[in-house]
């Protein structure tokens, strides 16, 4: 299976100590039975041929090959999104893990995006609950019928169908780079659980949606932090939050593969200080202006067009990897300070709801960003997961404290060990 257009970048930019992986998880009301979960994983294999795959290297492109056997479920580690090493990518790019009541699925980003991953998790959880409790769960609210054959539109590369062929040229300035003391072999996860109602009310007070409000609060947090650490205004760098846009809603696609494109709305602090309301307005205006189907088609074209050029296609893969790595460093990650990926409100079939306590979405750190943030809402709570590969929780502290100031109560969970971790001093 060929990689979709967005997926091409992830194998090319991976490093020995960094691979782009994300996680979706469902926490049930009772402990998970590993044997039942393994059966559910096995049964879903024919339904999701694009998920049960491994990464293979061709002469000109990477490609995905279906695995002969489903992955074995295993117990979760002390931190999410552990490094998916080369050997694992060559075996299976999908991990299914459990810990107490939680089922977690981790995907190499070339397989799918958050929305596709959530469809898989919902279907897996539905199948697990059916096997465990004998429930009859209808195929609705993102749960697929596990017995039907995969549909062609689920496996399509939607980028090629929705390009307008005209490349959108935008020369964005580089954004501020957040920094800290790198912690090898560990990712700190801080989860802020907030009541969705309070968050919606706080957003409405600023005249914004939840995504816009959270992105604006994040922007304001980084702006204030930068103002403290760099008193000279002229030396301050633009603060931009990368917001992935789910293109399925925009173009009505139902693909289970990657179909997401990121925008980098932000402000230049050299122009002056902004209030939160101003940041919300600006963020909403930027997202509205850039997030139209026409503009996005131009952005898709910028990614798709080079893939159609015969000369580029004929370049051997190792050379392509080097070039893609350089282009990604210059035009990808350098344009934002942090990702804020909101999967929105997650709905489940009514038959499943009594058995599922929470649903979460966690994205890993980027190659050069030390922090990332992902959001998902379920059952009246919004789960804001902030992950970092540095020791200092400064951004998290400022962000969650600001939410509390704005009248949003935050219940905080963290995987940071109470005592220094073994080997953390090295």
């Amino acid at each position, binding site marked *: 299976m060929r990689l979709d257009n967005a997926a091409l970048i992830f194998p090319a930019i991976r490093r020995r100590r960094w691979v782009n992986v994300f996680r979706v998880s469902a926490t049930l009301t009772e402990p998970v039975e590993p044997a039942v979960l393994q059966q559910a994983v096995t049964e879903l294999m024919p339904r999701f041929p694009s998920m049960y795959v491994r990464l293979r290297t061709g002469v000109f492109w990477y490609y995905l090959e279906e695995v002969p056997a489903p992955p074995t479920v295993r117990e979760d*580690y*002390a931190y999410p999104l552990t*490094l998916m090493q080369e050997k694992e990518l060559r075996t299976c790019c999908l991990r299914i893990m459990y810990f107490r009541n939680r089922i977690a699925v981790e995907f190499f980003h070339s397989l799918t995006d958050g929305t596709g991953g959530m469809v898989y998790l919902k279907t897996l959880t539905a199948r697990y609950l059916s096997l465990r409790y004998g429930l009859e769960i209808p195929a609705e609210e993102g749960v697929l019928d596990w017995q039907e054959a995969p549909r062609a539109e689920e496996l399509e590369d939607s980028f090629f169908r929705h390009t307008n062929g005209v490349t959108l040229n935008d020369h964005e300035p580089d954004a501020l780079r957040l920094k800290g003391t790198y912690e090898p072999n560990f990712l700190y996860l*801080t989860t802020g659980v907030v009541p969705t109602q309070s968050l919606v009310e706080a957003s409405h007070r600023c005249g914004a949606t939840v995504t816009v409000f959270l992105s604006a609060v994040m922007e304001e947090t980084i702006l204030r932090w930068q103002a403290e650490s760099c008193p000279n205004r002229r030396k301050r760098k633009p603060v931009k939050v990368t917001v992935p846009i789910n293109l399925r809603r925009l173009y009505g696609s139902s693909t289970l593969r990657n179909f997401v494109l990121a925008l980098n709305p932000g402000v230049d602090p050299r122009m002056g200080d902004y209030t939160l309301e101003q940041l919300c307005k600006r963020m909403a205006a930027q997202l509205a202006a850039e997030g139209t189907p026409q503009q996005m088609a131009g952005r898709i074209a910028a990614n798709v067009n080079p893939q159609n050029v015969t000369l580029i296609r004929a370049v051997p893969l190792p050379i392509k990897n080097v070039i893609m790595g350089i282009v990604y460093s210059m035009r990808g990650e350098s344009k934002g300070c942090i990702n804020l990926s909101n999967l929105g409100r997650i709905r489940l079939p009514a038959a499943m709801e009594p058995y599922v306590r929470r649903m979460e979405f966690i994205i890993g750190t980027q190659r050069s960003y030390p922090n990332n943030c992902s959001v998902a809402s379920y059952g009246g709570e919004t789960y804001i997961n902030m992950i970092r590969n540095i020791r200092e*929780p400064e951004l*998290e502290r400022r962000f*969650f404290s600001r939410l509390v100031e704005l009248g949003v109560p*935050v219940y905080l969970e963290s995987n940071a060990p109470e005592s220094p971790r073994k080997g953390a001093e090295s």
Partner: protein
Amino acid sequence: MYCVKCGVRLPEGTARCPLCDTPVWDPEGSASAAPTFSDRYPAPPKSRRYPFLAFLTALLLAVSLSALIFCLRNLHGVYWSGYVMLGCALVYFAVIFPFWFERREPLIFVPLGFLLTAGYLLYICLYTGGSWFLSFAFPVTMLVCLLTTAAIALFRFGKRRRLLKIGALLVLIGCSTMLVELFQVISFGGRMFTWSLYPVCAFSLVGLFLILCGVIPPWRAYVERKLFL
């Protein structure tokens, strides 16, 4: 229970706030909440650096020994294999050796590289029966070593006053060319100030301009804007 500093609610039994490390006041001594993650850690990724370094070490050793064996068997002496062996040693200690360490401190390894270069030059001088090592090669190598180490030290400890540092360094480089010419005249004869005045003038002019820019804020702002510093 809440963190009094951040205002966030924390799970029961938390000893310290994970955000600000403030101790949490818990008079009732609540039992800890169930952990959200296990205590299992994955095996850390294996480093591919050490096998690669071992391969390079073996390769250089093989090249050196081959050259030595060839000369001993065919020429009945060390002859040119000395150059090969010392060249390999120089490459090894200057380029490969620092990578065996997790922290490669340039202020240690750069002077070490220059010392080895001086040693190599000494071998060439002795082997060819020359007398230029002490009067020319050694002082010039040490001068370059001093300037390089000074440059690394200057830029390593603080990024402030970069223009001033670059300017001072350029003036020093310019002036040191006069010393090089002096050593050249002592060793090989000839007249003083035949070529060194040109680099002295060029480097000093640019260096002084940068020093002035470092001292005068409007000039500094202009140069920093133009050079994207």
